[in-house]
């Protein structure tokens, strides 16, 4: 598979996520869209790692471990994502407890 396919796939997913963030007003959905963005990145990273591995393998044999970092990075992204989710949902719930809404457009006590 040409790398460009993966690049474009990833970018498209990412942009869908962005569009979601821009168009929805439910905090949870927005947060989900962000997760979608992260996943797009993950996919991209894996693809790249495999690409580099392919290039390296062509030069120095299949035994090389070039490209491992990419996948490890994805692992760390997931870790961080998990942490973020815990905190994020905590905040959203707290918000909900106080205002019985998760609609970001109601959040304009702070402006100007």
């Amino acid at each position, binding site marked *: *598979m*040409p*790398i*460009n*396919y993966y*690049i474009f*796939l990833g*970018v498209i*997913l990412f*942009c*869908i*996520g*962005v*569009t*979601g963030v*821009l*168009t*929805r007003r*439910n905090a949870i*959905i927005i*947060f*989900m*869209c962000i*997760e*979608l963005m992260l*996943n797009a990145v993950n*996919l991209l990273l*894996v*693809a790249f*790692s*495999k*690409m580099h*591995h*392919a*290039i390296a*393998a062509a030069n120095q044999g*299949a035994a090389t*471990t*070039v*490209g*491992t*970092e990419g*996948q*490890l990075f*994805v*692992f760390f992204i*997931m*870790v961080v*994502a*998990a*942490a*973020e989710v*815990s*905190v994020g*949902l*905590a*905040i959203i*719930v*707290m918000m909900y407890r106080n205002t019985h809404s*998760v609609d970001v457009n109601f959040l304009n006590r702070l402006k100007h």
Partner: protein
Amino acid sequence: MSITQILFWFLSILTIFSALMVITRKNPVYSVLWLIITFIAISGHYILLNAQFLAVVNVIVYAGAIMVLFLFVIMLMNLDADAEQTKNKWLQLAGVVAGGCLLLILVAALKGAENQAKTVEMGTGSIGLIENLGQVLFKQYILPFEISSVLFLSAMVGAVVIGKKN
């Protein structure tokens, strides 16, 4: 058209479609479900790329734990379809346009010639296997690994601070 290619195209279309569904569904629950499908599709990609470990983790952590958490919260708040009245059309349109522009710009920026030749190895390659990842992770990447524990600690403390009654 090899089987991998077919799978690739199928998964790609599935991913994009379900992602679109995620952002277009009124009812949050549906969105969550579609998102799960997206993640699973992405895991499929991982398998295609012979990154089993990530594929598994993705399913477990994301599609499993995280999404369940989401679902749980949504249920807890029992937000149903009409809970969210659509936001003003113009803003939505602007959002879509902006997203589209970003896509265009990125695509335009990335269609560099140097990537044409490069390909991704499908199926083969052992770097995605746990053994290899483990080796690198606990030798070279030990520090980030430890540090991420701090991350979790702070997340934990944070959740406590936020959650705890006073």
